[in-house]
């Protein structure tokens, strides 16, 4: 189990114990973190799982991947250097304590 901390735009924190091997989108959906919808089921094809990776963690998650993830992020709102699609972040032991911030709104 790996701890992931999701912080809403208003500051509310959701601390989730996630199974390794699933994505940060799936972990959020399983634990009903509001604001991460995951409409496409994790195919990087809807951008309803947009998150900002805390800058301290960015080196470990890596930036958005070339290809569909980057393209889809281009059409999301308020995209920043630290933006990722949570469905493209795999939960692993090296991400224990990962902090993901949620945008104001997802669509």
């Amino acid at each position, binding site marked *: 189990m790996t701890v992931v901390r999701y912080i809403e735009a208003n500051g509310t924190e959701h601390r989730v114990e996630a199974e390794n091997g699933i994505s940060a989108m799936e972990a959020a959906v399983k634990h009903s973190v509001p604001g991460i*919808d995951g*409409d*496409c*089921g994790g*195919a*990087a*094809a*809807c*951008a*309803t799982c947009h998150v900002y990776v805390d800058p301290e963690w960015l080196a470990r998650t890596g930036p958005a991947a070339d290809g*569909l993830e980057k*393209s*889809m992020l*281009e*059409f999301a*709102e308020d995209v920043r250097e630290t933006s990722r699609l949570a469905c493209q972040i795999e939960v692993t032991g090296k991400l224990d304590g990962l902090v993901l911030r949620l945008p104001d*709104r997802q*669509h």
Partner: protein
Amino acid sequence: MTALASATTTATEADSLPLDRIDVSRAELFERNVEGDYFRRLRREDPVHYCADSTYGPYWSVTKYNDIMAVDTNHQVFSSEAGYGGIVIDDNIQKGGDDGLQLPNFIAMDPPRHDEQRKAVSPIVAPGNLAKLEGTIRERVCRVLDNLPVGEEFDWVDNVSIELTTQMLATLFDFPFAERRKLTRWSDVTTAEPGGGIIDSWGQRKGELLECAGYFQNLWNERVNLTEPKSDLISMLAHSPATRNMKPEEYLGNVLLLIVGGNDTTRNSMTGGVYALHQNPAEDAKLRNNPALIDSMVPEIIRWQTPLAHMRRTAVADAELGGKTIRKGDKVVMWYVSGNRDETAIDRPDEFIIDRQRPRQHLSFGFGIHRCVGNRLAEMQLRILWEEILQRFTRIEVLREPERVRSNFVRGYANLPVRLHA
């Protein structure tokens, strides 16, 4: 009894043909509401199906949820480009006949041009902007509902669905309100073919679209020089750095894309919801007991209705899909209407269930870089409509079965006779 009898007949019809003679593009299948039997058979026996001969030439049908997702997210191989025939099975709609008016818009473009234009247009329908329009939209919904007769038969399609969709488009564009039915007409003309009852010739289509172009050019000219830009879509296009230098035909192409995109789709969802609740009285009762379910009912209506039955792509390289080899140049049709009934991806897909756990996991808006930009706008319109319906009427009684539109693209209703109960 008759409904049961006809269901049996059509199941036999769909099951009795040899696989290679199945052609799901026949518009009359949709008009008769029997396309579902054909798609059920294809999903079971030949989910990526080749039809060698049809009115629209040879084409592939992709019928399962995951295969559709695979095509929709692989825009490098499966192109939307107008030059290959665009995004519907019928190439003619894209060309507008031999001497057609070319109206480029980004739904029928590949990257990088698609991405540039989508980025310019999409902030206009982003939720922040929509919130500003919500008040006006609600007022207009209330006015239409308040003027409906209670206890008397009328047509829901014409009096509510078309009227409201048109009013909402007029609101978005701040279009002269008294002339709003022009918008409906231009939308119909854009997707029409001669002989289908809307236009008689491609020349007529071109003439009417030129009139539309002139009209929108005037609106642009009026608004471009205002120092206090208004918040309607045309003002935003005229003032945004990304779009204010658009060529006139691109401006018109994108205006028409927004009109067509938001017209039949929303209209038929407004009708589909009434019809679905009529067929499922237990769901209607659930909704009446707990109006908060509107939030999950709205996406379920859009899945159940699947207002656009398909989107088409053209392969620009060979590709494997579901064990078949698709060749460069082949026409590939993603049947959303079938993927949304795929029992391997959606639980009890034939049922209308207003409190599904993940109601937005459906294909009606597509996925990938072309995913509908108007999806939240469409949902907002439907949410407001249902909130106001529940305030006013205890029941919308459907008096007879609706007639359906003869189209393999727009999945919709020509009419729906209803009676309201106060």
